[in-house]
């Protein structure tokens, strides 16, 4: 029963791991372009397991930001995980003791949450471990490949690949924004504000721009278009 759940987790983790392989490749390239070593990029991926937080994190490292800025940026960008963790915690198997919760919490990402949240039966620790192992393998290996490629490939290819990670972010936000007016307004407002900050409030570092724009655009969204339980994605 236990090992069956583990195998099932591994199976469910494979598509996630493959997807992570390509996103983290983009992260590896971005990190190395910012002067971060292959080993550091790998450790960042292993210890954080999150795309947007890491992407902004390496920006802060490269621009020698403060640790307070780093902490606040991670808090805001990754705040959604708190909500996912909360939601997952409602449907855990009885075998999910506190110790297991401490370990499995490491692996709460958008994709792993999505897979676990659609399960009808209570989630067991071994099932989550199965998914997390495959996802983490894809995430760290992709980072390593991207970072290593960043050190080997010719400069003009590397600069073209620098857009990869942002291209993926576009691919994440454009489809829901084009179908959903409220998301479109939030996304457009955040983009406009961030552009204004970039050119007119130049004393703000990129991390604080993300915090200010992310929070204010989301507040406006929550105020103008409150989301009812049923339509939550």
């Amino acid at each position, binding site marked *: 029963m236990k090992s069956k759940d583990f195998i099932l987790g591994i199976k469910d983790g494979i598509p996630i791991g493959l*997807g992570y392989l390509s*996103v983290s490749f983009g992260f590896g390239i971005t990190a190395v372009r910012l002067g*971060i070593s292959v080993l*550091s990029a790998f450790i*960042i991926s292993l210890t954080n*397991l999150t795309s*947007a*937080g890491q992407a902004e*994190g390496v920006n802060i*490292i490269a621009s*020698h930001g403060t*640790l307070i800025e*780093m902490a606040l940026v*991670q*808090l*805001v960008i990754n*705040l*959604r*995980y*708190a*909500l996912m*963790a*909360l939601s*997952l*915690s409602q449907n855990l198997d009885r075998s999910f003791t506190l110790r297991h*919760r*401490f370990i499995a*919490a490491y692996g*709460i990402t*958008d994709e792993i949450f999505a897979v676990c949240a659609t399960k009808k039966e209570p989630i067991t620790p071994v099932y989550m471990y199965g998914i997390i192992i495959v996802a983490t393998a894809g995430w760290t290996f992709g980072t390593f490949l991207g970072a290593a490629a960043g050190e080997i490939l010719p400069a003009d290819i590397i*600069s*073209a690949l*620098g*857009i990869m*990670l*942002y*291209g*993926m*972010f576009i*691919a*994440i*936000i*454009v489809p829901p924004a084009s179908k959903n007016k*409220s998301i479109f307004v*939030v*996304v457009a*407002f*955040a*983009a406009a*504000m*961030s*552009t204004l900050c970039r050119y007119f409030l130049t004393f703000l570092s990129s991390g604080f721009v*993300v915090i200010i724009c992310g929070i204010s*655009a*989301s507040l406006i*969204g*929550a105020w103008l278009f*409150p*989301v*009812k339980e049923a339509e939550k994605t």
Partner: protein
Amino acid sequence: MSIALYIIVMAGVTYLIRMLPFAFFRKKIKSVFLRSFLHYIPYAVLSAMTIPAIFYSTGNFITAAAGSVTALVLAYFDLPLIVVAIAASAAAFGAGIFF
């Protein structure tokens, strides 16, 4: 400052955000406003991170713009993440040959 310090703060904060609610909270968030706010956060944050930074991501405004437009169009037609990302890079690389 040592990069290890940055990584410890980064990983520590990210872990606590996941672990605290997962391990200790047992109630649901009832406030519609708070739930809505959390619902919009990922879109708002990704948008603010991407624009205008994407235009500086290749070190050349024109090649980055070519890649950005490609990404926007393909994403609009719901193509998979990896296809959008590779096409954006290819467009930036192609534009780099001319500019």
